[in-house]
């Protein structure tokens, strides 16, 4: 059992406001897999209420209300998809609540889960500042190489109008995504630059897992200043996680941003409408679209990626049952996959099945994590349906 210095969890009024109606229960992807009430948002709120209202009565009745390992595991059993918030009867800001609760627990001496601690160690390492490492040479300075994904022949503007914030995954793992984005921006004559070694992890994996200190204390401000120093008013990112963090978290940390944040899908829509982006090749396929939670429910971007897909000649676009605000999580988000990969993939199996029911030949989604997890889910569920990042898909059409 973990001893807490201060037993008062955050946002106590919320626990009393909660109606315990359970609307959050059946839409919770983790509850759908685990099936225990303790995994539901309502169950967690109930426990928080007991924690915050511990009294003599608990002693008399010998009720043990405490933060133990099982409870910590439950709190981390969350993909931060925010479906609970969407359905909440009494408009509780549940997505924020889960993050506040994690932050509170860690501040009070609870240890983060091991995989999350690993993320923290790498991101806080001045020679990395990202969640990845070179496994053959863990000591290697990866920060220096942050911008090395940039394809030869693409000239960065000295006088940019746009900064492309590549994000860690595209910088180090799925470089092809960053490269596609840069190529598209270049083809459309957008004057853009990148941050190179000045681009640090946006902090999404740490903010979602309650390990907020360095992001709130240093990283957010660093990234904002690095962007500001390029003199731009527009930032474009191809990662749903970076997008949500820059757009929604940074203003809470550093105040109003001196630039506007776009997801690449929104920017592509603008370019297409200005005739700067043209789709020259047909893609004769039936496509369905998966809304990444951090782009959709969190970022409120639903139409732009659909606009892009629909405008590619040859595409037959079909929707799944649960889309947009009601979309179903792929299972990867919020540091969940790295800690509970099995359950994350089971969640993906369900989502891929839903996509399969539409008759689609391909799932397109603008988030690298969704792509990876949905493909893992398809494999696990033995479903012959692949997922592809929107950027990769668009590249095939130009």
């Amino acid at each position, binding site marked *: 059992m973990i001893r807490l210095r201060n037993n008062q969890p955050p946002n106590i009024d919320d626990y009393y406001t909660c109606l315990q109606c359970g609307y959050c229960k059946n839409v919770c992807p983790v509850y759908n897999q685990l099936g*225990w009430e303790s995994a539901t948002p309502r169950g967690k709120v109930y426990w928080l209420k007991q924690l915050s209202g511990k009294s003599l009565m608990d002693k008399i009745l010998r009720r043990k209300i405490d933060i133990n390992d099982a409870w910590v595991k439950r709190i981390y059993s969350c993909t931060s998809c925010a479906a609970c918030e969407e359905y909440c*009867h*009494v408009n509780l800001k549940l997505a924020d609540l889960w993050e506040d609760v994690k932050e509170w627990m860690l501040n009070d001496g609870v240890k983060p889960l091991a995989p999350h601690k690993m993320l923290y160690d790498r991101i806080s390492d001045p020679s990395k500042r990202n969640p990845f490492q070179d496994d053959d040479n863990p000591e290697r300075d990866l920060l220096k190489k942050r911008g090395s994904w940039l394809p030869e022949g693409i000239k960065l503007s000295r006088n940019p109008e746009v900064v492309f914030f590549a994000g860690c995954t595209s910088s180090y793992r799925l470089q092809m995504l960053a490269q596609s984005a840069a190529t598209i921006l270049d083809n459309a004559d957008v004057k853009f630059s990148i941050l190179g070694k000045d681009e640090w992890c946006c902090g999404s994996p740490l903010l979602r897992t309650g390990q907020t200190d360095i992001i709130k204390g240093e990283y957010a401000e660093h990234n904002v200043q690095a962007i500001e120093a390029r003199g731009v008013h527009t930032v474009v990112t191809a990662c749903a996680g970076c997008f949500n963090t820059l757009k929604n978290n940074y203003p809470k940390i550093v105040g109003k941003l001196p630039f506007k944040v776009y997801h690449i899908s929104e920017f592509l829509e603008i370019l297409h409408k200005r005739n700067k982006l043209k789709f020259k090749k047909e893609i004769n396929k039936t496509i369905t679209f998966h809304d990444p939670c951090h782009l959709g429910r969190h970022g409120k971007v639903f139409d732009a990626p659909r606009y892009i897909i629909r405008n590619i000649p040859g595409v037959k676009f079909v929707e799944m049952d649960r889309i947009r605000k009601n979309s179903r999580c792929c299972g990867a988000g919020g540091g969940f996959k790295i800690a509970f990969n099995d359950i994350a993939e089971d969640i993906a199996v369900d989502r891929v099945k839903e996509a399969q029911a539409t008759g689609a030949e391909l799932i397109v989604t603008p988030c690298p994590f969704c792509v990876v997890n949905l493909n893992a889910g398809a494999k696990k569920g033995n479903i012959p349906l692949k997922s592809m990042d929107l950027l990769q898909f668009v590249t095939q059409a130009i």
Partner: protein
Amino acid sequence: MMSLMFKNTPDLVVKPKNALEISKLMKYAVKNNIPIIPRGGGSWGLGGAVPTNGGILLDMGSLNEIIKVDKENLTITVEPGVSWKEVDDIVTSNDLFLGAYPSSAPGASVGGWINTGGIGIGSYKYGGVEQQIRSIEVVLPDGKIIRAGFEKVMSNSSGYNLRDLFVGSEGTLGIITKVTIKLHPAPEIIRPISFSFNDVGNFIKAISEITRARIMPWNITILDGNHLEYLRKIGMDAPEVEGLINVTFEGTRAVVNYEAKVLERIISKLDGEKMDDEFSEHEWSERYYELRSKAIGPTALVGEVFVPVKKLKEMFDGTNKVIKRMKIRAAIVGMISDRNTAVLMPYVLTDERKMVKSLATMAFIKKIGDLAFKFGGRPAGLGTFFSVNLKKLHGKGVETIFDIKTSIDPYDVMNPGKLTEGVTRFGVPIPALGFRSGMELMGVVKGILPKDK
């Protein structure tokens, strides 16, 4: 307080996989005299799914398979843990139609609504839960698994209606493990229309006239001025009026258009104002969210009473008098669930952290129950607290009800402490008289306290 009286925490939670497992568990429970408490979505307010003296809690959420959509016979067969919203979603995507569901559909389970004998959205046209189901599978306390009702046709005929015995039984007779639900062809359109009133008298008169007109709305929801004020308080867009009637039609376009016209004529004669389509659609999309403004409390106590439509005026006046006398913040929302039944859900906003104040507020629920009796209606639901009403509701019939309970569950393991008996953790019954006078006293106390802001 509650936890002193009751042992609310179960000794064990079981997630059953199928009826057979439950049957074995029942036999074990009987042998060892262990209470079994079925729990569906846990959304019912009267404590039905909460143990009163420990035992095994059966979490029916694990029985959540959609077994079959039968288009030929217009049914869907599901396990009881599936939510009504999920049933409705699947039915709709199969181009069929579910007649009625509780307004708690996203959280309420199929088994739970049957066991609370509910009425809900759509009941005006399609009846209560018993009219939505064809047959059920039940595990009895002795472990027997029976089917009650008929999967493809009506249950009506001579002979005891076994199926309906379990409707509203609050999990005290058996565990429902499978349900076949009756469906309809999909309507051409669903059309919500909202009307607002600046005068309470006209608001109530309009409700009454709608029920007497030869039109058949699918659903009628009513919201009073206080409710709308609370919605504005939490930043929602609600008109500053004395009452809102939300009527929803479904069916063939031409018929719906005609019925809407008749309705509009009734409303305009009573100075009601038709709201625009966007507002009406929004009200309809809010149909699951009656307690949006709970944060103002942040505790809400909700009552539920049935009153004859023609006594609505008296019931509203009486309730508002109680609200004034008790100096509480309360509002009335409701549904009209057949031509003569108004189901009102008056709710009080209070704060459970202020013990005296919130306990005293509980008297409100009892008082509106009394008003309902006075006007020829009744309070709804028994559960743990209101089982004391059983006698008042059924008179001598109570003995028959006890006989039924004893013959099906002679071991008293099925959800003890509910419906037929209000019993605390020490087996001490909640005395009806003590309960009533206690509640009265609390009401007096609340009236002495300062007014709630």
